[in-house]
């Protein structure tokens, strides 16, 4: 214990009390130390303050480390799985819009072409004049086809009378067309 020359605890005695370990070989037993603490407010106060400081240090360090580790774990989770709030980012929305357009536009075009209305029968009725000219044209084509020699090849069949025949033929065709019209 404290010697008569030193009224207070030695540093080793003080440390043994702080460490709560068995008395140092140089120190006396804990009962004698506690007896001194009861009698000495200075040592008692210092021991209380130091013990409290160490406790505060431990609690604050633990709380701080716990918070930091929780943040690290949260970051790890975010790195593995994208958090829901990341959907608010413009890049995600732009990508989603492009994908939606890529899917919906071809579908819309196909759907639109399928719904295009068939031409109305009433809208394509032809006038009587057009119908007559069409019939005349078809008849002329029939004559050309039924002829043994096409009109364009006749000059080759009779080269001598080609000019007269051609002119006569042309006149006859013209008069026939006029009569039909």
């Amino acid at each position, binding site marked *: 214990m404290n010697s008569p020359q030193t009224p207070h605890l030695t540093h080793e005695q003080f440390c043994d009390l702080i*460490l709560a370990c068995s008395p140092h070989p140089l120190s006396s037993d804990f009962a004698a130390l506690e007896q001194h603490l009861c009698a000495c407010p200075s040592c008692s106060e210092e021991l209380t303050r130091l013990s409290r400081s160490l406790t505060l*240090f431990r609690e604050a*360090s633990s709380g*701080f480390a716990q918070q930091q580790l929780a943040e690290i774990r949260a970051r790890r989770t975010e790195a593995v799985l994208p958090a829901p709030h990341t959907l608010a980012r413009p890049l995600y929305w732009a990508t989603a819009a492009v994908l939606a357009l890529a899917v919906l536009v071809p579908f819309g075009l196909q759907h639109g072409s399928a719904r295009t209305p068939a031409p109305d029968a009433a809208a394509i009725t032809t006038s009587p004049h057009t119908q007559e000219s069409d019939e005349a044209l078809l008849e002329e084509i029939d004559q050309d086809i039924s002829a043994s020699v096409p009109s364009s090849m006749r000059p080759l069949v009779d080269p001598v009378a080609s000019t007269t025949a051609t002119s006569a033929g042309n006149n006859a065709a013209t008069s026939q067309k006029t009569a039909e019209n």
Partner: protein
Amino acid sequence: MTSQVLVNEGMSALNEASVTPVATPFDDLESVVATYEQRVFRFMLVSLRDRDAAQSLTQDTFLRAWMARSSFRGDCAIFTWLMRIAVNLIRDHTRTNRFRFWKRADANSVDVSEVAQHIPHLESSLESRMIANEQMAIVWESVAALSNRQRDIFLLRFVEDLNLSEIAAITNLPISTVKSHLYRALAILRARHTAGILPDKKTKEAV
């Protein structure tokens, strides 16, 4: 013939023992991490005062433990073995000049005011809060003034709450040496505590 048979049997048993891996608690690394990560990280963070370094070295601790799991004999607790690795990693890390350079001004360095925010204030008065913050800050600054070995032992005792024999097993030092380091560390702390030295006044700002 009998001796030959015994030799053969012994050889086959040896081969089986060498081939079959011995199961260790570190085979289930996930549960080991879940159980001890908090404490290993706390020790790293308070010792290094650097978030990134603490996180990195905590991961290294478990990685090394898993890689060397075959050498775990079970003659000490899992936490003791992990802390032995952690202490060695910290020693290697703090030896480098790079650490000393970046320690001066690093964005990841922990400020005492951040730690002081986690003091449980049971008392509501402002004065008691300020006193508590000052007391904690004195210890925080005193720990920074300790040598690496003293700091390791101090934190193992007063943060991790390990007894002297466990600290001796982790640091591979005799108990008497561990005690001597603690006496010196507490001498520094007492001197600062008595003088009321508070090098960093940020604690008051944190209040």
